[in-house]
């Protein structure tokens, strides 16, 4: 091993500098700045003058029913998306991992939604969900069901959003699961087969436990990603948080407070509430992960 010298260190820091500058400028500085702004009570945003600091923004959030609704909607969204998405993508990944025809075609096909722009995807889905001319209601009509107002009925807006998000996130999760599956040594399966274990038994007793680090990773990433949902809502409902705010999530709330209402303090405080929620959930997951994940 090389000895640490000043020369080497400086050289290394120089190489790191471009990335560091970008991270500090666009990530770390905004994080600190928004923490500070969340404690501004009375301020002139444009000239950076603060007259009073305090907890007014947090107090406002505590009492704001709209914020509570946004929190509730976000939880509904996470619970609607994450488990279903993980189960589905694991199922598809297992299928794609076996020897089927057109395997590489399907692998690409499932990954396409993930790399397509959210806006383009949402425009297509707006048509699919359309009450009068949409694909979904056409199919429902074939079975004699009444058309559903997917995007304009407050009851259906959240399910529509969840369907879109599951579909959109599938590709990424499948790729991660496929990588995890390929790490599982074929020997175990062969051994189990010799012992006469059936397909289901092998899945639950070999694949699932050995896949648990991957499942763990996917669940953390999906939960964090789902808590931050915004683009899909903005594009799917045409710049509105769904009919009668039925798809208002925390990030959308932050966006509205910041850009439409110029409530910079409240927006920053809401962002920090979201950060704390995600942070706590991730800690819980890490704790569970340590006990349950079989490495």
């Amino acid at each position, binding site marked *: 091993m090389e000895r640490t010298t000043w020369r080497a260190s400086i050289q290394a820091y120089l*190489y790191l500098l*471009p990335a560091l500058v970008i991270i500090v400028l666009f990530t770390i500085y905004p994080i600190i700045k928004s923490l500070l702004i969340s404690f501004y009570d009375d301020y002139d945003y444009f000239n950076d003058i603060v007259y009073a600091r305090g907890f007014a923004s947090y107090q406002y959030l505590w009492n704001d029913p709209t914020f509570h609704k946004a929190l509730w909607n976000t939880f509904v969204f996470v619970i609607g998306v994450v488990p279903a998405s993980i189960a589905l993508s694991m199922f598809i990944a297992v299928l794609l991992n076996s020897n089927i025809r057109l395997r590489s075609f399907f692998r690409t096909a499932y990954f396409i939604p993930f790399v397509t722009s959210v806006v383009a995807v949402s425009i297509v889905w707006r048509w699919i969900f*359309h009450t009068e001319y949409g694909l979904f209601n056409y199919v429902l009509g074939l079975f004699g069901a009444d058309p559903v*107002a997917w995007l*304009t009925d*407050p009851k259906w807006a959240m399910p529509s959003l969840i369907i879109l998000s599951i579909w959109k996130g599938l590709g990424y999760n499948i790729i991660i699961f496929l990588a995890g599956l390929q790490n599982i040594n074929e020997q175990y399966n062969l051994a189990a087969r010799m012992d006469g274990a059936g397909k289901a038994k092998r899945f639950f007793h070999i694949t699932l436990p050995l896949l648990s680090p991957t499942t763990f990773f996917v669940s953390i990433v999906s939960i964090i990603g789902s808590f931050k949902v915004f683009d899909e809502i903005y594009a799917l409902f045409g710049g509105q948080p769904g009919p*009668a705010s039925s798809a208002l999530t925390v990030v959308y709330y932050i966006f509205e407070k910041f850009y439409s209402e110029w409530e910079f303090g409240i927006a920053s405080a809401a962002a920090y509430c979201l950060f704390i929620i995600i942070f706590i959930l991730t800690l819980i997951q890490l704790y569970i992960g340590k006990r349950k994940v079989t490495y």
Partner: protein
Amino acid sequence: MKKLTVLLTLMFLLLLVACNTTSDTAKETSKNASPVETTKEKETAKTEPAEPVEIEFWHAMNGDHEKALAKITDDFNAQNDNITVKLVNQGGYGDLSQKLMASAKAKTLPTLSQAYEDWVTEYIQNDLVADLTPYVENAETGMTDDDLNDIVDVFREANMWDGKFYSMPFNKSTRVLFYNKGLLEEAGVAVPTNWDELKSAADKLTTTKDGKNIVGMGFENGVGMELIMWVKQAGGDFIDEKNRKVLFNSPEGVEALSFINSMIQDGTARLAGEDGYMSGPFTRGDVAMYIGSNAGIAFVANDAEGNIEWTTAPVPDGKKKASAFMGTNVTMFNTATDEEKAAAWEYMKFLISKENTTYWAMNTGYLPVRYSALESEDWKKFIQENPEYGVAQEQFDGGFYDPRVVGAYGVKNAINKEVEFVLLGQKSVEQGLEDAEKAAQAELDKANR
């Protein structure tokens, strides 16, 4: 890998150099600007740039609207050797407002932008816009009294705050009733002129034809934004601007919202909903009539071609005549240099000259902002041939503009949300209005504390 790091370092160095030069030029310009700044107070508005000036005009005009704006601007640039106006399309009004806010923070505001009156109120509060009064009153390049009074009253007044001009009316619109001639004839329905007729017409026009559902009446998604018009038509008051009190939770308010709501609930009317704007379903023949901005005429005309026969009529009257005049104005930011401001003022005058406001109206569906334009032979002939363009101006009596109190933007949004709850069946009319009153009053109090 080595190449990559070299490349990255190079890029980074370039970035540093670029940053340096920009800050240098910024320093220089601020040095140059400072002496001018100090003399500004004594001197009235400067005129005629001696050196070439380029100014930016941020707008939210798209489609035919953008084409018409580009043509007028090209004409201006061709006539003025030393001034170049650069149009910057910022998307929709929402995007424009957000970008203006961000650029105000970053101190990179354009010289000119479109803005609603309540935005301007907000900008005045934050000391971002330039007072146009010295420009208007300038003996050489200002506007004479006749010239000023030639601007339609409701538009001129909407752009004055405490007797000062902070913007000039540009693309002004109002609500009109669009209707499908074919469908109305088939059903034997006359064009509705009052609320009762509108309701019964919507009822008769709602049918199923060849397996296609037709809804009688349509409203835009932001119908809550135009609640003020309906309340005033019912004879009620909306907001007391002086005492900053909302007044719409009254029997008249209940009547107005119940009127719209009853049609939505019994299925004889619908919102634009997932279609975004009513022009879509209307030109497909899914909706027989709708109330929307006359600025939509250009879009409806495009989409209707070969589909439906249509025209416009004045919005049916309630107990009173009332039509809101909306649309944006052109405002000038005070971050611009005096030269830029002078150039911008020339452009503003050009934009609303008699000829240009007429050209603008003919190509977009917006209203001409000058009486002389409205009375010109060209315009009269044009609306005779295209009667749908002539309807909006019939509504000048009873014309009013949206409240501009500080916080009006938040008030409108709060009301719109509650109205949406009512129309989507989440709240009763009374509950919705009560909550809207509370939310709107809270917004007013917060903005004026």
